[in-house]
């Protein structure tokens, strides 16, 4: 007899990072009974790792900024594959979402006249990121957490969802387990919001924690919803690379925003060597002009270090490949040099980038106020996700919503730094609001007990086997994706990856774990493998399908952009018979007024 606890909600939110909490707050405020499921403790989600800031055209620092410029920047950064309606809503609503946070207790750094200070960031034309030193994500998640706990939502900490449940073509809830004792939980819900973050754990070098196993992507796919833009995985140009144990930990773009420069082993600022045509008119001609930009000179253009992440990451790879890299296979990031320009440089660095100072000092023994950092690309973010309606965030499965990183569309082929925190707020709110509305307009759901029995049986199988070690399967998957479907992609290698993935799927079926169901790390790793393998296959197949290089997707066999390929998004869906189906959908036509906005901003 299968034992489980049952909980019933109007809206179930899966994930408690920025998007999940914002959705839960909004759904609660709209009168819904809300449950939140999180794999970790409350307040530990990956949002705490966001350092740089929240992009919003508040125009506190430069009055020339407005939603139109932000919209155009986002579209240009995404190489025009973005869902324009999401980009429009995002640019228009982000300022209100930031001000709202302040009303809930967030404290951002200030301008001289006491307003929210904004900083420069890659791909943003004007200083746009509301921030708190380099710990903006912590400020945001703590604000949402401390506001949310008083709104009546029930939080289930350290719980993992195994499967989404359906009732005749609409969502009916979810089934999962809690980590502490390993007991099963059934959540009946009229609407479900996925806010599970990304897929970074599919790669070996990553800034993502153990949680980022693509659960939302895989759950939605398994339930028959479509995913979009899954070939676009962002490799952040600056992760730590030495010592080996810290490889992948993020070094904020804020370092470059505050004047940090990238150099190769010859001391050359190689970013000046390759400036893409569509950014040339916005990029500084000289090192001097770049420096003036970082110091707020409104007539200066941005230094090439602040070009989009996809481009900077590829330039770093080029330097390393051509033998001009640093001793441990990266390049140098230098912020200490600003001491030659700013008399109190060391203090300035510590005040503006306290976490970075701390992180390098403690983990690498490097004092960034005196020494250069060694950095290289690290898996950071997935642009792709659940295909949603831009206004409501509902997927093509009625009652299933998605927000934040696990939703696709806003960022197109490449996300701009700072646009993720604003994404979480804008679309978390929308997702929560429309999920509550859906729940109020639709009746009770019924649960198919066979479905949950099957899920429970599957989940307990690893205890009956003494087979493959789950950690080894996970590590092999990470190495495979890093080597064969990473920053530089080739068709042959990706075909090899698919074959190897097949073998890993078989190995995952033989995984065994020792011990019992109580807080068993091996068991959790074994269960997450299914999600990881699903998203790894989706990323690889869609990456084979896109035969051009655009944004974060770089094909060595098709090294340039191709207008025909760039005219559509790639969509993945599970067929009724369980096959992975890939189709192309033409881009939504841009309304003429938005087209005009883009032209004006060129």
């Amino acid at each position, binding site marked *: 007899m299968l034992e489980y606890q049952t909980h019933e909600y109007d809206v179930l939110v899966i994930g408690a990072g920025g998007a999940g909490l914002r959705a839960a707050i909004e759904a609660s405020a709209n009168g819904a009974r809300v449950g939140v499921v999180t794999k970790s403790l409350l307040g530990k989600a990956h949002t*705490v790792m966001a350092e740089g800031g929240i992009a919003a055209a508040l125009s506190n620092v430069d009055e020339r900024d407005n939603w139109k410029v932000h919209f155009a920047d986002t579209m240009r950064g995404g190489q025009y594959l973005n869902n324009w309606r999401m980009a429009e809503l995002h640019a228009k609503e982000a300022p209100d979402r930031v001000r709202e946070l302040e009303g809930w207790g967030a404290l951002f750094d200030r301008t001289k006249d006491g307003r929210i200070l904004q900083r420069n960031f890659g791909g943003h034309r004007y200083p746009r990121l509301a921030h708190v030193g380099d710990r903006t994500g912590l400020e945001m998640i703590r604000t949402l957490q401390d506001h949310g706990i*008083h709104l009546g939502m029930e939080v289930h900490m350290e719980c993992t969802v195994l499967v989404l449940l359906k009732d005749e073509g609409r969502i009916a809830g979810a089934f999962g387990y809690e980590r502490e004792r390993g007991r099963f939980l059934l959540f009946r819900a009229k609407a479900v919001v996925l806010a599970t973050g990304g897929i970074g754990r599919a790669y070996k070098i990553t800034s993502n*924690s153990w949680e980022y196993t693509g659960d939302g992507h895989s759950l939605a796919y398994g339930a028959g919803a479509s995913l979009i833009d899954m070939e676009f995985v962002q490799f952040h140009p600056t992760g730590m690379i030495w010592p080996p144990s810290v490889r992948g930990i993020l070094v904020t773009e804020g370092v470059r925003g505050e004047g940090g420069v990238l150099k190769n082993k010859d001391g050359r600022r190689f970013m000046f060597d390759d400036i893409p045509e569509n950014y040339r008119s916005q990029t500084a001609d000289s090192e001097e002009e770049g420096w003036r930009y970082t110091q707020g000179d409104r007539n200066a253009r941005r230094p090439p270090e602040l070009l989009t992440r996809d481009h900077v990451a590829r330039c770093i790879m080029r330097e390393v490949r051509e033998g001009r890299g640093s001793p441990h296979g990266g390049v140098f990031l230098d912020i200490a040099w600003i001491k030659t320009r700013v008399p109190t440089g060391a203090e300035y660095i510590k005040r503006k980038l306290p976490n970075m100072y701390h992180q390098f000092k403690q983990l690498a023994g490097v004092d960034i106020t005196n020494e250069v950092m060694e950095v290289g690309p690290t898996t950071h973010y997935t642009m792709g996700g659940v295909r949603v309606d831009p206004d409501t965030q509902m997927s093509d499965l009625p009652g299933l919503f998605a927000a934040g990183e696990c939703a696709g569309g806003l960022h197109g082929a490449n996300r701009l730094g700072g646009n993720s925190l604003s994404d979480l707020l804008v679309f978390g709110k929308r997702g929560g609001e429309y999920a509550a509305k859906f729940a109020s307009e639709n009746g009770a759901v019924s649960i198919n007990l066979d479905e949950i029995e099957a899920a429970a049986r599957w989940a307990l199988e690893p205890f009956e086997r003494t087979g493959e070690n789950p950690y080894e399967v996970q590590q092999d998957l990470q190495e495979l994706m890093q080597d064969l479907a990473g920053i530089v992609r080739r068709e042959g290698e990706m075909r090899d990856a698919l074959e190897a993935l097949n073998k890993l799927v078989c190995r995952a079926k033989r995984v065994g774990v020792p011990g019992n169901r109580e807080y068993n790390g091996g068991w959790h790793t074994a269960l997450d493998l299914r999600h990881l393998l699903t998203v790894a296959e989706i990323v690889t197949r869609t990456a084979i399908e896109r035969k051009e290089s655009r944004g974060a997707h770089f094909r060595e066999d098709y090294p340039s952009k191709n207008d025909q390929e760039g005219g559509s998004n790639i969509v993945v869906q599970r067929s009724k018979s369980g096959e992975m189906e890939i189709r192309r959908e033409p881009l939504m036509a841009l309304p003429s007024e938005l087209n005009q906005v883009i032209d004006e901003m060129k």
Partner: protein
Amino acid sequence: MSAAMFRIWRGGNGNGSFREYTTEVAPGMVVLDAVHRIQAEQANDLAVRWNCKAGKCGSCSAEINGLPRLMCMTRLDTLPLEEPITIEPMKSFPLIKDLVTDVSWNYQVKKTIRPFTPRPAAADGSWRMAQEDVDRVQEFRKCIECYLCQDVCHVLREHHLHGQFVGPRLLVFTAALEMHPLDTGRRTDDLHREHGIGYCNITKCCTTVCPEGITITDNAIIPLKERVVDDHFDPLRKLFRIFK
């Protein structure tokens, strides 16, 4: 590569013991790396909490050679590797299993603290604040909720007064609200009556272990104690209250 020995607490309350594991260590490794390697290679079912591995989320708190620390920020080359390294769970909270404790009490207590109550915004919906006013509170808002301060606090650890004293973390949280430039709430009655601020006898152990370097006792707890004294023990104010 060389090998090092780790003594890790295994098991739950009342049925646990230290187990010894030997594993390879490499330059730059932190304690959490070693624990992960042991988990992957020798003890698949080992329970350990972690997330960011960069000192920002406060999940991997434990006691390393008797000192409350974050496993992800403790480099092995700062420890005497010629002897076994002891890793055990925090002591102020009920043990779940191995290195994982039940910290849910902290979340329950937080709910009892009066929430942020801002003064009205200007007509444009925003507030003006000076950087200096913001700086004072940002020290407290740096807190990553690792609960190492709760772990080391003798009121909780030795005397188990969880029902009467909220502990340093939640006093820092209260201080962040009380000193917030926009907040209009008043929490001194609660601090005095419900949250047991009087139990803190300023031994400053919490400040010593804080991985974020927050000056918990001097900057948060003592000013709160002063506010409580002002509101409850000032004879002039007492008189004023009687005749009000």
